[in-house]
């Protein structure tokens, strides 16, 4: 893959088919934004299912959400917002050529993402113990609504897919960390940090909507 360039003036990160670094940076960022559009519509399908069923069975949602722990949901919201902040700080560090700050912020972000997953894990286990499984495996009898299994199918799909995105995000952060330690990033070139950051913020935004929709139906 002949991506190195023959021209002497061009920086090493610049691929041959771009004219300059700005064009390359702007292209990557636009590409990421378009990808985020697909993510929004991907989750959009689940939100649509959520809304359709909520419009049909408002009682179901009120009853079923009592099984979700608002406290831990709020903690997880704070954790993800915190990680968004550290990602923003990581990008800032890269822009200012502070590679050490970049690495530290990436470490904190990964730590917060793990915290989120651990809390999510305990929430899941707690429900499984009660027999709250998705769909046909649902055995819990504490909710007096015949469609309770449907609510939890939607709950597991939404939080499960969101969790999957968090895990993918952790993978991306680790990859950034490895590259940062090798000195791949600088104030001139930090595109991967920037666009991974965009992805991470979107994961945060999706959770910002999931939290009131699932946990805060009083």
């Amino acid at each position, binding site marked *: 893959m002949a991506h190195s360039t023959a021209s002497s003036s061009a920086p090493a990160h610049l*691929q041959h088919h771009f004219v300059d670094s700005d064009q390359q940076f702007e292209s990557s960022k636009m590409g990421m934004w378009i990808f985020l559009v697909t993510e929004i519509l991907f989750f959009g399908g689940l939100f649509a299912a959520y809304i359709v069923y909520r419009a049909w069975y408002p009682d179901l949602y009120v009853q079923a959400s009592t099984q979700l722990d608002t406290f831990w949901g709020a903690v997880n919201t704070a954790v993800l917002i915190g990680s968004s902040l550290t990602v923003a700080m990581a990008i800032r560090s890269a822009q200012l050529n502070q590679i050490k700050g970049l690495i530290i912020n990436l470490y904190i972000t990964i730590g917060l993402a793990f915290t989120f997953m651990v809390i999510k894990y305990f929430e899941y286990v707690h429900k499984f113990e009660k027999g709250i499984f998705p769909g046909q495996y649902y055995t819990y009898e504490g909710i007096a609504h015949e469609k309770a299994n449907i609510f939890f199918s939607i709950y597991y799909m939404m939080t499960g897919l969101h969790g999957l995105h968090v895990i993918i995000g952790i993978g991306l952060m680790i990859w950034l960390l490895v590259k940062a330690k090798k000195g791949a990033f600088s104030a001139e070139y930090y595109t991967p940090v920037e666009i991974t950051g965009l992805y991470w913020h979107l994961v945060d935004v999706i959770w910002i909507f999931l939290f009131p929709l699932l946990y805060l139906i009083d």
Partner: protein
Amino acid sequence: METSALKRLQVQRFKPEENPEIHYLNSERGLWSWLSTVDHKRIGLMYLASIAIFFFIGGVLALVLRTELLSPAQSFLDADVYNQVFTLHGAIMIFFFLVPSVPAALGNFILPIQLGAKDVAFPRLNLASFYIYTIGTVFTLVAIITGAVDTGWTFYTPYSTETGTNVLLMTLGIFILGFSSILTGVNFIVTIHKMRAPGMTWSKLPLNVWSLYATSIIQVLATPVLAITLLLLVMERALGIGIFDPALGGDPVLFQHFFWFYSHPAVYIMIVPGFGVISEVISTFSRKHIFGYWAIALSSLAIAFIGFLVWGHHMFTAGQSSLASMVFSFLTFLVGIPTGIKIFNWLATMYKGSIDLKAPMLYAMVFLFLFTIGGFTGIMLGALSVDIHLHDTYFVVAHFHYVMMGGMVMALLAGLHYWWPKMFGKMYSEVYARISCALIFIGFNLAFLPQFVMGAQGMPRRYFNYIDQFQPFHQLSTMGAYIMGVGFVIMFFYLLHSLVRGEKAASNPWGSRALEWQTTSPAAPHNFEHTPVVIHGPYDYHKPMSEFQLGIAHGHHGESHQPETLETVAETGTRP
């Protein structure tokens, strides 16, 4: 943001070299150089080969179906096998052939050249999306071999969650294909925005690029919904989540909403890029400026948008509320407006043009004829009351074959014959091309016109046997299918002959003004040996050819890439 400052560029004329010694096909050699290539032209050809294989498989399956239908009673397929064969025919033709056909195969090859770019914005992502496509096909092929699927290509629940066949692997395969489609869309949108040559403003974009832009938008907006739908279906089978399963309290009609939110726009993923090809071909072979440039360009975007509002016309008899049916029926009629705008602009382009009926133009004519029939019958089906009668009959089958095969496949063939010299640097036999075009046209109408009649008389689709009264129609239809088959076999051989011993093609065999014809045939490894500079639109036939071959001598970096408004000093000298 684009700068509006006028910039003076010193340009010179670059006449494309004839019979170049080094081009993209021979600049690197060996199988590995193909499998690891990031060159959009080679990736385009690899897609082309893949879709050709799947078109062949899907076509053979179609002939098998038609052969079974020669006689009213069962002949050699039993009901279950028949169900599997039509499911495979539909799924392969739609997901493996039509969706990637013009965007991924022709589009990949031609889009960056038409923009004057060296490559798409993300070449490695482009290669990755080809391999994702390959992985998706492997999943599906495994699904076919280990127990075919019998749900129809629509995978309607609850049958698809209950049938014992291999729905899981098949839907996973199509889920993966969706990623490939999304990545191609992302790549094209960014390429069109960021990679245009100096002077290539939005008002000078070839209409093919506008079409690919509209298509990419649909791919990006619709495909994720298919992904989540199929994922929910997979989960339905694997975990019994029940969102679509009435036995568990779910709603199967919701599945149809989600499915058609993708699949109706998806028919525009399949047809809109065809519109682009037709615009190019009609202008080139009429030797005339395209009539209504902006009308054609913007109607593509209008179709893309309206296409998202009409999906419920597939569900008129599925139990959706009558309010929704009425709204969907009304919105469906709106699609006719931008489509009609296109047809009339193409006709106006040909009016008083010097029309040259070469093979690509012949296919474009066939397209106009067949697609118009397909479009009008679509309006009929969109009418609520008529659809109640025609729903799930052969009328629907005939309608979408007129649109998909009569529209998109003809546009693909027009494009293939149009850009063939640019792809391989060889010409094909014009005589055989015309014979095969005629056979396909006759065969197609023979195959599908009778289906309108028997559909209106009540012959339901997806049945392997039928009452005697329909036999003459089915026999005509089968005959037509065979004639089409012969047409495609002839095409295969003359194209093969062209590859092996075809005449060398000139750099611009059609005398087009478009940018892709101002480079060598086959194209240079990086499309152009210089940085092209554009001062006229691609359809300005009233301007001399020399003003379309301008550029700045090559340097890897350092030129301005932003399309400025140019004040060009055209220096028509010789090559340096």
